């Protein structure tokens, strides 16, 4: 209990209150402790006027009225009133209406004015040490009108801010100016007030006040209102003020007066804050209710889902989420539905949202792990390996024991490591052949120009195949010369002659373009490692593409594609895509594509679905005679390295295949067939190859591998001879 308050009250009411207090608050330990103190200060008189009821009330409610917590915690700061807006009615000071006698008002003024208050006055005289101001009224929070009190204040010269233009700051001011100043010092006993024009004299909350000369319009509202109609009653002034009609003036004033509505103060025993339980409040009940309503919807939704009615199930889930957003059960159920339907991204979003709300939801975790792994698998197929890795790791962080995620992650990591290793190797080798690249490029340009000319001639002539094949032969032969070793290696491989040929052709192709004996590690690796490492080739091709081939190889690829279709070596200048829709040899192109595809198949026999997917894609495109797409995809492959390798292979194979087809369509047919037979594992592949074989021209195909080799050698020889020319 606040002792001072009690004392104040008691001194007002007198003994009767005290005795009442004692009787009413007998149980109150707080009161008892200070009762002894208070009894001394209680006057022995009775309160003015019959206030027994009030005393009774005070006595009864003393524990509430005088409790320290009852006081407003915020000490209301005086703030500068913005005179333009009037959120509530600003009234003239009450003492004016009450017509309090002058002396008392003077006393009150001196009692209440403090350092830091804003005061307004009129300059009466200017001396060399400062100027005197007759006070008119107070500004800011304290609202007093003291004009008639004839109080004077002094503003010493040091308190006047100096204006640069004037030597003497006082010369800026004239008698009769209205000045707004801050109270610097108050001497109550001698009734002297010192004011200052420095902003520092004001309290911080009044920082925006403009001190100095003001005009009549700047006079505070309470003064101007009071001065103008002195005959008007308080009530009239109040009701005529604009601020009084403001609908929100209650809220504004509550803030100003420091009353907190949320505390809901009351003097009724039953309405004390402590009696209200948090769960009885409307919003809490609503939350619980929404959750239970939403749960019902989810249950019906799950029933629909189990019965297979996905649409209805989704409707129920959405309804549940409308009733209660972020309802965990609804989110998990909807996520499961999305996952079943295949929209994995949406499913993941839902699960994550559910886990945010309830991190320990078992089902959500489980489903999320599964969906992440599935999505990772999807991304792997799309060659977005890093993202896939991220997802697997995430799945593992969620659930350490999730087998599938671990396996998938390990597989992927190995994959990435290999890629990186090979890339490093490539980088190293790339350094070596840096020099040779350029020179090779120059050479190649020359060759290609020649080829171009020849091609044009050939085009006019109908027998294009032979010349091209010859050129191919030369290329292949030259390459062959340089890569006999590799050929041997290739021969060892049981996979197919096609492979070797492809290698040869690709090698030859490359060697023609670049005289480097070493050429690219691709051929060296592919022959042996190719068999073992499914992705090695992919790596190599990708590396080639990315590094040196980026400039030249890019064009090489392009050119290879072009060559495929043009039955000649690729032209740098040609746009691979332009070559694709070559109408003259649609069939050949198809064949080539089929070959490429087939060889690709053969190359990556051990590869898993991604390859299949690629191949399927490839085959589908070629089948649909979308040459452009195919070649574009192969030439400018946007796949990850796997697909790149794929395209690589396809390019080289395309080269080889086109050579084959040029050379001997039968051969290609045969090879295709054999390939198809050889790789029964790939059903699609075999189907496609069969389709191709059916769709293509049906000629007799030599089944002798050696024949083919000899032919290749022939071609290469011819090519080299041509080049020598």
């Amino acid at each position: 209990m606040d002792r001072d308050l009690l004392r104040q009250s008691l001194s007002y009411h007198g003994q009767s209150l005290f005795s009442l207090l004692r009787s009413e608050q007998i149980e109150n330990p707080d009161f008892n402790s200070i009762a002894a103190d208070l009894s001394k200060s209680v006057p022995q008189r009775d309160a003015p006027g019959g206030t027994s009821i009030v005393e009774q009330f005070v006595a009864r409610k003393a524990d509430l009225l005088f409790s320290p917590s009852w006081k407003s915690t915020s000490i209301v700061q005086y703030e500068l009133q913005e005179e333009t807006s009037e959120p509530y009615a600003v009234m003239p000071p009450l003492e004016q209406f009450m017509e309090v006698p002058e002396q008392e008002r003077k006393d009150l003024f001196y009692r209440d004015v403090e350092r830091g208050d804003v005061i307004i006055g009129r300059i009466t005289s200017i001396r060399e040490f400062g100027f005197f101001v007759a006070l008119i009224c107070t500004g800011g929070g304290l609202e007093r009108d003291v004009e008639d009190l004839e109080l004077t204040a002094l503003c010493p010269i040091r308190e006047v801010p100096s204006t640069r233009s004037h030597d003497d700051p006082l010369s800026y001011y004239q008698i009769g100016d209205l000045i707004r100043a801050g109270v610097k010092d108050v001497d109550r006993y001698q009734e002297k007030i010192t004011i200052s024009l420095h902003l520092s004299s004001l309290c911080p909350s009044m920082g925006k006040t403009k001190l100095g000369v003001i005009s009549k319009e700047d006079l505070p509202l309470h003064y101007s209102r009071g001065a103008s109609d002195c005959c008007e009653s308080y009530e009239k002034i109040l009701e005529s003020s604009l601020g009084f009609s403001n609908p929100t003036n209650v809220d504004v004033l509550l803030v100003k007066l420091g009353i907190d509505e949320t505390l809901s103060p009351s003097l009724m025993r039953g309405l004390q804050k402590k009696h209200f339980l948090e769960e009885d409040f409307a919003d809490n009940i609503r939350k619980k209710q929404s959750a239970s309503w939403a749960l019902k919807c989810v249950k019906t939704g799950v029933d629909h889902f189990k019965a297979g009615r996905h649409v209805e199930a989704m409707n129920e889930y959405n309804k549940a989420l409308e009733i209660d957003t972020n309802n965990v059960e609804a989110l998990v159920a909807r996520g499961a539905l999305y996952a079943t339907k295949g929209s994995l991204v949406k499913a993941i979003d839902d699960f994550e949202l559910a886990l945010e709300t309830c991190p320990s939801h078992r089902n959500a975790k489980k489903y999320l792990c599964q969906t992440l792994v599935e999505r990772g698998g999807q991304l792997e197929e799309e060659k977005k390996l890093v993202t896939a890795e991220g997802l697997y790791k995430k799945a593992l962080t969620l659930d350490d024991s999730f087998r599938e995620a671990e396996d998938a992650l390990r597989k992927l990591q190995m994959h990435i490591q290999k890629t990186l290793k090979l890339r490093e190797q490539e980088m190293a080798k790339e350094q070596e052949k840096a020099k040779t690249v350029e020179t090779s490029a120059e050479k190649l340009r020359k060759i290609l120009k020649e080829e171009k000319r020849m091609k044009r001639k050939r085009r006019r002539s109908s027998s294009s195949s032979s010349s091209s094949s010859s050129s191919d032969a030369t290329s292949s032969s030259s390459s062959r010369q340089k890569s006999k070793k590799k050929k041997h290696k290739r021969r060892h491989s049981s996979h197919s002659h096609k492979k070797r040929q492809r290698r040869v052709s690709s090698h030859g192709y490359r060697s023609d373009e670049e005289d480097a004996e070493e050429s690219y590690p691709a051929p060296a690796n592919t022959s042996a490692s190719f068999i073992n490492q499914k992705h090695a080739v992919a790596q190599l091709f990708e590396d080639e593409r990315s590094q040196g081939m980026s400039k030249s190889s890019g064009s090489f690829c392009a050119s290879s594609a072009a060559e495929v279709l043009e039955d000649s070596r690729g032209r740098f200048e040609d746009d691979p895509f332009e070559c694709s829709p070559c109408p003259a040899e649609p069939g050949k192109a198809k064949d080539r594509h089929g070959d490429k595809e087939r060889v690709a198949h053969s190359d990556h026999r051990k590869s898993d679905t991604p390859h299949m997917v690629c191949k399927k894609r490839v085959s589908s495109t070629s089948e649909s005679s979308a040459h452009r797409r195919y070649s574009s995809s192969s030439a400018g492959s946007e796949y990850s390295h796997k697909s790149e390798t794929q395209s690589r292979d396809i390019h080289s194979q395309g080269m080889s295949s086109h050579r084959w087809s040029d050379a001997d369509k039968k051969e290609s047919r045969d090879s295709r067939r054999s390939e198809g037979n050889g790789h029964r594992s790939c059903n699609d592949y075999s189907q496609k190859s069969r389709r191709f074989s059916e769709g293509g021209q049906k000629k007799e195909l030599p089944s002798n591998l050696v024949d083919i080799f000899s032919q290749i050698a022939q071609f290469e020889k011819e090519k080299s001879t041509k080049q020598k020319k």
Partner: protein
Amino acid sequence: MELVGRSHEGRGSGDVAKHELSQDIKTHFRVCRFIIETGVKLRMRSMPVATACALYHKFFESADLPAYEPYLVAMAAIYLAGKVEEQHLRARDIINVCHRYFKPGCEPLELDGKFWELRDSVVHCELLILRKLNFQVSFIHPHKYLLHYLLSVRGLLNRHACARTPITETAWALLKDSYHGPVCVRHRPQHLALSVLYLAMNSYGVELPAGEAEWWQVLCEDVTKAEIDAIVSELMELYNMEARCT
């Protein structure tokens, strides 16, 4: 009306009129307490709660208790007051809170037929109130008068003394509590505000400088001391009733 738990309790038949009257008064007190409590739980501001109570009192000025279910009228009054005072409440929240008031600690209502019936009855009762009051449902409350008076009175006091003495809170609390009874609708809002302020100042023994006129006379010219005293005694009576009714 299933919601009714206690309104008909203690109603003896053939009692003395006085007893009946006091019984009614007790009922009204309880229902007003119900309104104010619900207002707190719905986080209503003071004004809408005041409007709701005023609507309730005005309604039962002309209506008889046996004819209308007071708690339903109270719920509808809250619903209507929210609309009048621009603090829109949803019927679902009102029903939830009221349901829990009568059955403490129970589960929230399910979205079934019963819920919709309750909602329907609230809405119908709202229309009934409107018709009973001739659609005059906007009241001028003493709140803003009180706040302005407080400002003016504070201007007369020393700011530190004023900060020490919680006149503002007490006056506000007194005003809110005054809505338990019909005193809120029987007097002019200025008078009620003034009385409340007078009581608050008196309780703490705060004295204002005396002038030609008393401060309360200045604030509201047509009020008399007698009237202030009458209102004060009515307020006191409400507090006494609390002990008897609850």
